[in-house]
């Protein structure tokens, strides 16, 4: 292995935490194999991130500068990834598993003739092959997956590794890549982007998540959830059921179809614990469940379970958490 390439996702002026997690793992593997650690930033102004990436021990920062990456359609993203891979010539390309990465991973694998192992909980590189553990069957099992020899694309579930700056900063040599992309190559048109959430805390990045299920019922329940989230500076999540009723936006959905989160602290409020939801939160460090139904499957995952009415428990909890924080 001569190099490993970590693809960095940015959000406004920040690097996404999930990208720093997968970058940290990429660095461990690069160091173990005495390989160069490259990273790629595709952004309208990628240079701003070079300092932060140096702290994570990166040897080179490849950048592709284009406004096409804002509300991106997939063709320019695929083209930039192909161009960066040609420059870096890596044995492994590491991504954080975001929706934007899921959108392009298969296409990039075909364009590069590379193997792809998506959504891993852990991975390693030995003897020219990647071995990984992937949650499958709605996260009921872990599949041991191995690549054949050759280039491999790996996307990593958020929370699988810690984002850890390097002991020694890297050189972070800036390598701007030429990127020529004709509008005619896009072949599709973005007509509208409807953003949800505004300036709310990003779910995949949050260290505390407060999630709502059917038991939250209505507007007054939603206000309670928001009040607890505000007290904890938490992101707000939801089950598919309450997204379908329109109580929560689809961007809040956690589970097999929605987002996968693994915060330090997860509150499941009025959530029964269907396997499709659990698949998106079971790796949370501490899980608190509040549910009226003592037989709800969520209690099988909870660190602390409270059998009771969330409309009574949550207001009391907000008071107690406020007191505990100031005590």
């Amino acid at each position: 292995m001569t190099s490993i390439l970590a693809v960095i996702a940015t959000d406004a002026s920040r690097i996404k935490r999930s990208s720093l997690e997968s970058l940290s793992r990429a660095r461990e593997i690069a160091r173990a194999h005495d390989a160069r650690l490259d990273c790629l930033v595709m952004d309208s102004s990628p240079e701003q991130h070079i300092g932060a990436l140096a702290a994570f021990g990166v040897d080179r920062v490849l950048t592709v500068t284009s406004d096409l990456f804002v509300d991106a359609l997939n063709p320019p993203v695929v083209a930039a990834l192909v161009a960066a891979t040609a420059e870096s010539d890596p044995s492994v390309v590491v991504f954080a598993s975001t929706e934007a990465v899921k959108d392009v991973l298969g296409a990039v694998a075909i364009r590069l003739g590379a193997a792809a192992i998506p959504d891993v909980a852990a991975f390693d590189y030995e003897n020219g092959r990647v071995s990984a553990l992937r949650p499958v069957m709605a996260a009921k099992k872990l599949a041991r997956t191995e690549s054949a020899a050759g280039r491999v694309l790996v996307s990593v579930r958020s929370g699988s590794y810690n984002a850890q700056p390097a002991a020694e900063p890297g050189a972070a040599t800036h390598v701007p890549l030429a990127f020529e992309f004709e509008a005619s190559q896009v072949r599709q048109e973005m007509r509208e982007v409807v953003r949800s959430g505004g300036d709310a805390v990003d779910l995949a990045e949050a260290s505390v998540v407060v999630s709502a299920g059917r038991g939250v019922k209505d507007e007054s329940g939603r206000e309670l959830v928001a009040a607890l989230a505000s007290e904890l500076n938490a992101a707000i999540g939801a089950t598919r059921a309450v997204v379908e009723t329109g109580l929560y936006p689809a961007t809040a959905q956690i589970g097999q179809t929605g987002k996968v989160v693994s915060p330090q602290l997860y509150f499941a409020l009025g959530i029964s614990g269907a396997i499709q939801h659990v698949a998106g939160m079971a790796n949370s460090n501490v899980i608190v469940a509040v549910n009226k139904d003592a037989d709800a499957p969520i209690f099988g995952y909870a660190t602390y379970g409270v059998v009771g009415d969330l409309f009574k428990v949550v207001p009391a909890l907000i008071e107690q958490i406020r007191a505990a924080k100031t005590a």
Partner: protein
Amino acid sequence: MVFYVCIKQVPDVSASVDMGRMVLNAYDASAVEECLVLREKHGGEVHLVSVGPDGASETIRKALAMGADEATHIQVEDLSVLDSGAIARILAEFFGTVSYDVIACGKQAQDTDAGLTGGMLATLLDLPFATNAVGLDIDGGLVVTRQGDGGREVIHLPTPCLVTCSNDMNDPRIPSLKGIMAAKRKKIAVASPDKANLESDTSVTGFEPVPARPPGEILDGEPEEVAAELARRLKDEAKVL
């Protein structure tokens, strides 16, 4: 419009996966449903194509009973040894022999949760594509509403194109008795893939149980007492406050 929906027979993950009950992948069911709705609104045909062993014909028949026009069953002995790339190449070989406007796939299979095949197939066929659709419409091409990381995106794709569908876009219909009877007379063409397309770049070498969470504790009492106890545990025991 001529729609082709790629469907997969998978274990029922909502039950115990070791029971071996096989069903139509939920995401594919949503893709079938959405194409049927578009056919009802705009006319056209809905074809199904599935790569799978003999036993997959039962699932194909069920999807036909939802109202699709006809199906092709590309037979392979063992689906579990084929990775997404192999499936995409097998499907690309098939799509070289038919004409279509829209290829719809589920965004992932509920057993492997890989989500690669759609983008791979589109790239092999050099088609524009969009993933994770939560709504489809036709307007001089395909209008895809997709769920992105930060919100919903509305993308217009010229045909031919490929789209992968979320199960959040609709509730797939339950086949009626009439649909089930009609499906018995519908044609399922059988095909075999080129052996060169059966090579995989990745393989699953085994399964491990998900590490069990440490056993939890149920806190009992009146709401005020429980809340106080919980806040104390979160602060002093779990150290997350």
